[in-house]
C-alpha cells in the first residue's frame, strides 16, 4: 500500500524495504521497478546494481497489517463474511450476495471502482474456493469469474506458482519440468502422494492442488466484530422520564458484561422520541465497571437534561467502550473492595461536576515550583499511583497561588531580602526571612527572555509565613527593574 499523501509517480522505480539478516531486503516494488528487473526478497545493494535510480523507502509492515484488517471490515459492505489473506489479500465469501449488485461481473466492477476511490489497486477474481480465487486473482485474467464446472479448465494454464507453494517446492517442481497446474494435475496421484507424503501443507503440491480444485475443504473463518452490548426497552406508551426504567436497563447491560468478562468505561443512553428525534446521554467511568447500581447513579443528575418533547417510547442503553475485567475477590469476608471504591467516587464526582473539576496531581522532575505538579483529570488514569519522581526535601509551602500575585516591596539592598511589602492593600513588615533560593529558568523549555527567580521564605510581624520571589536581577538586561510576587503560603 502506498504511503498516504505523497505517492511517487509511476515511472520512478520505488521499492519498500525491510531489514533482513543480510542487510536491507526488498519487501515490495512498484511496476516501474518490476519492469527494471527488481524482484521481491532480493537485497537492495544487488538491485541498485541493476537499477541505479532506485528509490528506497522503509516498509511499514505493522501499519499495512492494521490497514488491511480495517479494510477487511470495510469490505463487509459486499458480503458479511470477510477475512484477510496473507499480507496483501482479502477473501470475501460472496455466496448469495452477488444478486444484490446485479450479478458477479457487476459486483467485481463495483469493488474495483470503490477500492480505486480509496487509492488502492486491486486484482479480483471469483472462484468456488479459496485456493482457486487466490490463483486466478494473481495469475488469471482480469476480473476472472470461474464456476464450479470450468475450474480445472481455467486453472490448467496457470503457473504452479499459483498454488501457494514455498520456494523450495517451486524449485523442485521446476526441475521436474512441471510448470503449469495442468501438467501437475496430469501426474498420477499415487506418485505425487508417495513423493510428498511427509511434506507440510505449504510444501505439498498435491494438497494445494486439491484445495484449488475444491477436493480439500478450506473454510473461510471470519473474525467478527464484537456484537454491541446493548439493552433496550420498548414502552407501550410514550413517557417523559426514563428514571424508572434505568435500573432494569443497567442490570441488563451489566449481566451481559459479566457473561463476557467485560467491564464498561462508557455508557450511552439513547431515547427515541415519538416525533422521530433521538436524544443521547453519555457517562464515563474511571475504571472498568459492571456494578449496576453504581452505573445507574451516574445518570442521576443528567436525566434532567434530556429534552423529552412529546415523550419517547424506546430507550436503549449501550456499553460504548468495554475493557477486559476479571472477577477478583480481594477479601474473604465479602466486604466491599477498597480498590473499586475510589474510582467509583471519581466517577460520581465527574458525572456531576464535569471532568475539569476533578483532578489529581502528577509530579514531574522540574525545578520551577508550578511545574513540579501537573494537575490532570482524575478520570484519565484508572489507578492513583504514587510512583513519581522523588523530589529533594526542600522547604516548600503548603499553598500555592495559581497565578503569583504582584506585591510592592521595600528592600535595603537590591539583591537582598524584602524589608516590608504591601500585599492585598495590607502592609507586612518582614520579621524573619530565609533565602534567597535561586531558581533559574529552564532554558530547554522556557522562552528566551525568562528571568530567574530568587525565592524568600518570609515571616511577617503577625506570624504569617509567605513565599515571595523576585523575578530577575537589577540590570540583567531582561526588562526593567525586577518585580516581586507572592507565590505561596507556608503553614
Amino acid at each position, binding site marked *: 500500500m502506498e504511503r498516504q499523501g505523497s505517492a511517487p509517480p509511476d515511472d520512478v522505480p520505488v521499492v519498500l524495504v525491510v531489514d533482513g539478516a543480510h542487510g536491507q531486503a526488498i519487501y515490495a516494488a512498484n511496476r516501474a521497478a518490476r519492469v527494471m528487473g527488481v524482484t521481491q526478497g532480493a537485497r537492495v545493494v544487488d538491485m541498485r546494481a541493476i537499477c541505479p535510480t532506485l528509490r528506497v523507502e522503509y516498509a511499514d509492515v505493522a501499519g499495512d497489517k492494521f490497514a488491511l484488517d480495517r479494510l477487511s471490515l470495510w469490505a463487509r459492505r459486499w458480503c458479511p463474511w470477510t477475512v484477510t489473506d496473507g499480507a496483501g489479500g482479502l477473501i470475501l465469501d460472496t455466496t448469495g450476495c452477488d444478486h444484490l449488485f446485479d450479478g458477479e461481473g457487476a459486483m467485481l466492477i463495483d469493488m474495483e471502482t470503490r477500492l480505486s476511490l480509496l487509492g488502492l489497486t486491486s486484482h479480483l477474481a471469483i472462484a468456488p474456493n479459496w485456493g482457486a480465487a487466490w490463483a486466478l486473482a494473481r495469475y488469471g485474467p482480469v476480473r476472472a469469474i470461474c464456476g464450479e464446472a470450468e475450474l480445472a479448465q481455467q486453472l490448467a494454464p496457470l503457473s504452479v506458482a499459483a498454488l501457494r507453494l514455498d520456494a523450495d517446492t517451486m524449485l523442485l517442481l521446476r526441475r521436474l519440468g512441471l510448470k503449469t497446474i495442468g501438467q501437475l494435475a496430469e501426474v498420477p496421484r499415487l506418485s505425487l502422494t508417495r513423493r510428498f507424503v511427509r511434506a507440510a501443507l505449504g510444501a505439498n503440491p498435491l494438497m494445494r492442488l486439491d484445495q484449488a480444485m475444491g477436493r480439500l475443504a478450506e473454510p473461510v473463518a471470519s473474525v467478527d466484530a464484537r456484537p454491541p452490548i446493548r439493552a433496550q426497552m420498548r414502552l407501550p406508551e410514550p413517557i417523559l422520564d426514563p428514571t424508572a426504567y434505568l435500573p432494569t436497563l443497567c442490570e441488563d447491560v451489566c449481566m451481559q458484561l459479566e457473561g463476557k468478562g467485560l467491564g464498561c468505561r462508557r455508557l450511552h443512553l439513547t431515547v427515541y422520541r415519538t416525533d422521530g428525534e433521538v436524544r443521547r446521554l453519555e457517562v464515563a467511568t474511571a475504571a472498568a465497571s459492571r456494578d449496576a447500581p453504581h452505573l445507574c447513579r451516574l445518570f442521576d443528575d443528567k436525566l434532567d437534561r434530556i429534552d423529552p418533547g412529546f415523550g419517547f417510547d424506546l430507550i436503549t442503553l449501550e456499553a460504548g467502550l468495554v475493557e477486559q475485567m476479571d472477577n477478583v475477590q480481594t477479601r474473604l469476608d465479602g466486604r*466491599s473492595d*477498597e*480498590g473499586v*471504591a*475510589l474510582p*467509583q*467516587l*471519581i466517577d*460520581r*464526582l465527574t458525572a*456531576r*461536576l464535569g471532568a475539569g*473539576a*476533578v*483532578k*489529581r*496531581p502528577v*509530579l514531574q522532575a522540574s525545578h520551577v*515550583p508550578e511545574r*513540579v*505538579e501537573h*494537575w490532570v483529570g*482524575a478520570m484519565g488514569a484508572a489507578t*492513583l*499511583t*504514587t510512583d*513519581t519522581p*522523588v*523530589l529533594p526535601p526542600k522547604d*516548600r*509551602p*503548603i*499553598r*500555592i*497561588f*495559581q497565578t503569583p500575585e504582584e506585591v510592592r516591596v521595600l528592600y535595603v539592598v537590591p539583591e537582598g531580602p524584602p524589608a516590608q511589602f504591601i*500585599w*492585598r492593600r495590607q502592609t507586612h513588615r518582614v*520579621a*524573619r*526571612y*530565609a533565602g534567597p533560593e535561586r531558581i533559574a529558568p529552564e532554558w530547554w523549555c522556557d522562552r528566551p527572555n525568562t528571568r530567574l527567580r530568587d525565592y524568600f*521564605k*518570609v*515571616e511577617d510581624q*503577625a*506570624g*504569617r*509565613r509567605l513565599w515571595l520571589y523576585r523575578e530577575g536581577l537589577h540590570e540583567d538586561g531582561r526588562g526593567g527593574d525586577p518585580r516581586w510576587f507572592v507565590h*505561596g*503560603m*507556608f*503553614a
Partner: protein
Amino acid sequence: MSEVFPSTATDAGAVGFVLAQLARKSGPVLWVQDRVSFKETGRPYLPDIGMQRPVVRVTTGRAADVLWAMEEGLRCKALAAVVGEVWGDPPVLDFTASKRLALRAEAAGVACWLIRRAASPDLSAARDRWRITSLPSTMHPDDPQAPGDPRWRAELFKSRTRKPGTWGVGYDRAANRLDFSAPFRDGAVAEGDGTPRQRAAR
C-alpha cells in the same frame, strides 16, 4: 467532623494544622474547594503530602456542590480524609448540612475537616470547632534570621468530647508531630476554659 476557622483568610496556619492532623492515617485524601477559596488562597501544593498519598482535588463553583462532593467522599470508605474549604457563610451551610456531614463521617469512619475562611462561627453540628492563628515560628536551629518550625495558637471553642481550651501548638516537621503546649496565661483567654458561661457568650 471538625471545623477550622483561620483568623484571616491569608493565614495558611489552619491548612497546616489540618494536614498535621491528617498525617495519622494513610490513604487517599479528597480535597474539595469552592472557587473563591481557590482564587483567594490558592490550591494545596502537595509535594509534601502528595508523595505519600494520592490526592483528588475538586474545585466547584458553588458551596452546595462542595457539600455534595464532601458527602459523596464520606460515602467512600477507601478515603483517609475529606477536606473541604468553604468561603464565607453560604446559606446552604446551615445546621442541617453540617449535621449530615458529621453523621456521615462518623458512620464511615472517615476524617472530615471543613476549613471556613471569612466565616462567622454560627450554629453548626461540628464535633470540634477550632480557631487557628499563626504565631511567630520557633527558632531555626541553624539560622537565627530564618523562620523555623511553625507555631499556631489553637483555640478549641466547641467540642463534644474534649474540654475546650486554648493552646500554643508547635509542629515538629522532622517527626511529623503536633506538640500542644500549656494554655495561654494571658488574661482574656485564661478564663475561657470551657465553662458554660463562656460558651453561651459566644
